[in-house]
């Protein structure tokens, strides 16, 4: 049996290419692992064996006919269930879209599959990506492979858990305020949020259009880079996607960090609510970088103090508008006995949406209302501009910035479920990056001393500085030597 938790995407691809194993065998191994682990973890809303075997068969045919294999040939991948893929349901973990069948493909997913990847399923998320724990799913929470009583983070918790548990080598998540990086930190995976515009948003059900960005989860930085290679690039279907020449994000992985200017963001480290172990992890990481030859210094991002407030105005505002289309008219949940169109709208939406979704729609509707717009949305946009300026001046002095990804390690299921504000604070370090639009990765740094749970390091780069971030992440990964296989998973197996 192939142990997928021990093989990188590159190793799988090379193994398939060299005939060590077939794509079908890899697929069987992945689906077998899902069979064994999924009852404990619930990372998936839908497992897609038919699509997977079909894709694997195409790869095996290619191997047989000796054509050059694409970079992710035979690699099992999972995608967050807010991304469209023909042949699957795209539910957004919502009753509203429980039976919604995709009618077209999300560009990033299509590109991943065109690179030879084998789709094993659609991953659980907080409903419409509203949350930081994957507990806000209409179909039940996903559990953290490192501790099944804890959350995997969110909203891309299913995608993170699938990769952490070795049910897929690579997965796609979407990150609006930290929804890739925070679960990455909580599940010990490499989790990359690209620069806004780097990856097409077409086909990913919009949460907040000016913040959303699709990115990869992987167990190694190299795999994340290969996945990013596959999904990035201009898309004529997304007017906000950047038209830039293609780049190979694996090119800088072995460059080392000698001379790299690394800034530790001290005011974020000192923020209330940051666990001492998390703070220590970032300090230790800075020392690691210094030892590797980087020029390490300190920097402050004072405006990021307003990040959370600005985010909880802008993101719900856009979400309230983006989610208006779920009205029961053309698709999605519709009450069967509506008296008139208003009744149809109100009851279909009240029944179809979960509590957090309704909370955000109401919040967003409120802040955009006549008389409140300037006080909320206008002010939030000003804060956003200040945060951008903070990053801009920081990147005049530094190539990358170090912060925690999450203020704490994975918390218990139910622990913050009834306290939205405590939950919102989970994203305090990741949100500023979405507001500014630059790129960042969470790389597993170490396990916490007492709870033996992963702590991630966030490495933040400037706009389109993915190669620099990859370079720093790869060097840190090698130095940290983090074992990405959760012990719990070993036990279940």
């Amino acid at each position, binding site marked *: 049996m192939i142990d997928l938790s021990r093989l990188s995407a590159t190793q799988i691809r090379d193994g398939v290419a060299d005939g060590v194993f077939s794509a079908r065998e890899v697929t069987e191994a992945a689906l077998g692992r899902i069979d064994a682990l999924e009852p404990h973890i619930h990372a998936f809303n839908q497992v897609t064996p038919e699509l997977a075997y079909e894709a694997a068969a195409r790869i095996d045919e290619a191997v047989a006919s000796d054509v050059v294999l694409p970079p992710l040939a035979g690699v099992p991948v999972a995608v967050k269930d807010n991304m469209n893929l023909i042949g699957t349901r*795209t539910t957004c973990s919502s009753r509203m879209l429980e039976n919604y069948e995709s009618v077209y493909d999300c560009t990033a997913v299509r590109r991943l599959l065109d690179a030879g990847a084998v789709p094993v399923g659609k991953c659980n998320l907080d409903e419409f990506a509203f949350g930081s724990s994957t507990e806000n799913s209409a179909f039940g929470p996903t559990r953290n492979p490192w501790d099944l009583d804890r959350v995997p983070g969110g909203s891309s918790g299913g995608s993170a858990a699938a990769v952490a548990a070795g049910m897929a080598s690579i997965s796609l998540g979407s990150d609006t305020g930290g929804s890739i990086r925070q679960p990455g930190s909580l599940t010990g995976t490499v989790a990359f949020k690209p620069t806004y515009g780097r990856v097409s948003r077409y086909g990913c059900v*919009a949460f907040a259009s000016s913040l959303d960005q699709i990115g990869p989860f992987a167990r190694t930085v190299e795999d994340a880079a290969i996945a990013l290679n596959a999904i990035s690039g201009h898309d004529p279907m997304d007017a906000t996607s950047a038209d830039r020449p293609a780049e190979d994000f694996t090119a800088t992985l072995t460059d080392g960090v000698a001379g790299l200017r690394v800034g530790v963001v001290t005011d974020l480290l000192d923020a209330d609510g940051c666990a001492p172990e998390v703070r220590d992890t970032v300090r230790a990481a800075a020392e690691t970088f210094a030892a590797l030859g980087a020029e390490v210094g300190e920097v402050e991002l004072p405006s990021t103090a307003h990040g959370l407030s600005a985010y909880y105005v802008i993101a719900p505002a856009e979400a309230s508008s983006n989610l208006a*289309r779920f009205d029961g*008219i*053309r698709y999605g949940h519709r009450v069967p006995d509506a008296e008139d169109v208003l009744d149809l709208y109100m009851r279909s939406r009240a029944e179809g949406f979960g509590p957090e979704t309704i909370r955000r729609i109401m919040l967003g509707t409120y802040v955009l209302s006549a008389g409140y717009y300037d006080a909320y949305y206008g002010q939030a946009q000003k804060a956003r501009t200040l945060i951008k300026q903070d990053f801009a001046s920081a990147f005049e002095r530094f190539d990358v910035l170090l912060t925690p990804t999450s203020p704490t390690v994975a918390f218990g299921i139910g622990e913050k479920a009834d306290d939205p504000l405590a939950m919102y604070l989970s994203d305090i370090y990741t949100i500023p990056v979405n507001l500014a639009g630059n790129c960042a990765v969470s790389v597993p740094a170490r396990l916490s001393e007492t709870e033996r749970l992963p702590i991630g390091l966030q490495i933040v780069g400037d706009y389109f500085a993915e190669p620099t971030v990859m370079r720093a992440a790869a060097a840190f990964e090698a130095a940290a030597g983090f074992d990405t296989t959760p012990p719990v998973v070993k036990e279940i197996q």
Partner: protein
Amino acid sequence: MSNRKEVRAVAKDRLAEVLQTWEAVIGLEIHTELTTLATKMFCGCPVAFGGEPNTRVCPVCLGMPGALPVPNEAAIEATVLAGLATNCRIAAWSQFHRKNYFYPDMPKDYQISQYDLPFCEDGHLDVDIGAVYGPPQPDQESDYATRIGITRIHLEEDTGKMVHVGGSEGRIAGATHSLVDFNRAGTGLIELVTEPDIRTPEEARRFAQKLRLIWLCLGISDCNMEEGSMRVDANVSVRRRGEGALGVKAEVKNMNSFKSLHDALAHEIVRQAELLESNGTVVQETRHWDAGAKRTSSLRSKEEAHDYRYFPEPDMVPFEFAPEWVESVRARLPELPDARKTRLASDLGLPVHDATVLTSDLDMADFFEEAARIAGPERARQVSNIMLNELSMHLNAAGIGVAASRISPAMIAELVGLVDEGAISSKQAKDVFAEMAETGEAPGAIVELRGMKQVSDTAVIEEVVERVIAANPGQVAQYQGGKAGLLGYFVGQVMREMGGQANPAVVNEVLKGKLDG
């Protein structure tokens, strides 16, 4: 028919009466679908009227989950072109906003539109008003020109169409269920808003007609009011003459022709004035024009007004229009109707009235210019005359436009040439035209076939003249005795002898030579 005319005359008199003491204040909102674009505003679906429901749709214009809008550059250029043609300032920086409201014909439940940063602002059109009723002009019979300010022109997407089933005339009242056709959803739509500068229904009509002509000239829309590709809504209020403050306004919708626009405004002005005269109050509301019943009725009151929660469209980046780009669009402006009218009058010597009529229809103007080109500029007036008389009457009778007629510019040029060269008389030309219109034959061929060719050969005419003189010695004596009026009698005799085909000028000349000599 005559009864209906009478009703109209009465209504017109009543409006004129009302306008003696009341002043109407009218602003228009004109939506025009960019029907000549190949594709919709934010997706690649083709633009066309009608078709099987929901066949010209895709994930984007259906608002499927995850689909994104990509702006159609050609639509933005068309809007800027419209702005330049109406003397607007083009924004240096602009963006789309989302207008949020729920309605089943709106796939995303928000409309991508523009809010405080429209593409075009501060324009105007000068409109010539024919002889009309009512002040402000003291001399009601005289023509005048008025400048109508244009507040803004912005670009947005059209909605789908609701089809209400089970009620009467497709209206929602009494319907058992409703269907939605999204073929139209996402079609580029420009909205032009005027200043409240319009004072009479006639001014409103002329403005809308002129605007339509300009849009057609720019080629940005087919401007079909019946099919709804050009939709005119009006805000109307009245105030006593001399009063400064504006009255409460009503918005009038559903005017599907220029005549409806005029009649609806006339009705609404009279309604409001009468209401105020009987100590009533005008309610701010939207009113629906019923062209059959010739009245407006309340559609919804302003208390139900929406809070549209406009905010900048985050799926698109803002637009920056470089001055050079704007100039490059300006360079593509075609000759506009006003300029064309002036040119036809000054270069080809047409009376201003004739030039105005010809250029008020793009096809007629094109037809004229082509015919005049073939006939030669010295014959332009004759071309114009025949077009404004015979051709116009024929087209009116047939109920078709010139483009649909079988008569070509070359045929008109040929006909004018035949008259000008003396081959046929003007009277014969009318007969030739009639046959040409019926058969589509070229005028030369008709003349040939019918043996209509005019005889100008002096020798032939002399022979007949001599015969006529010889046969009428009495009349000759009277003529030569001073009764000059008898010349017409001789001309008639000669023409009759020659079956009407003699050139009258030559006959005159020969007769005079023989009789006077």
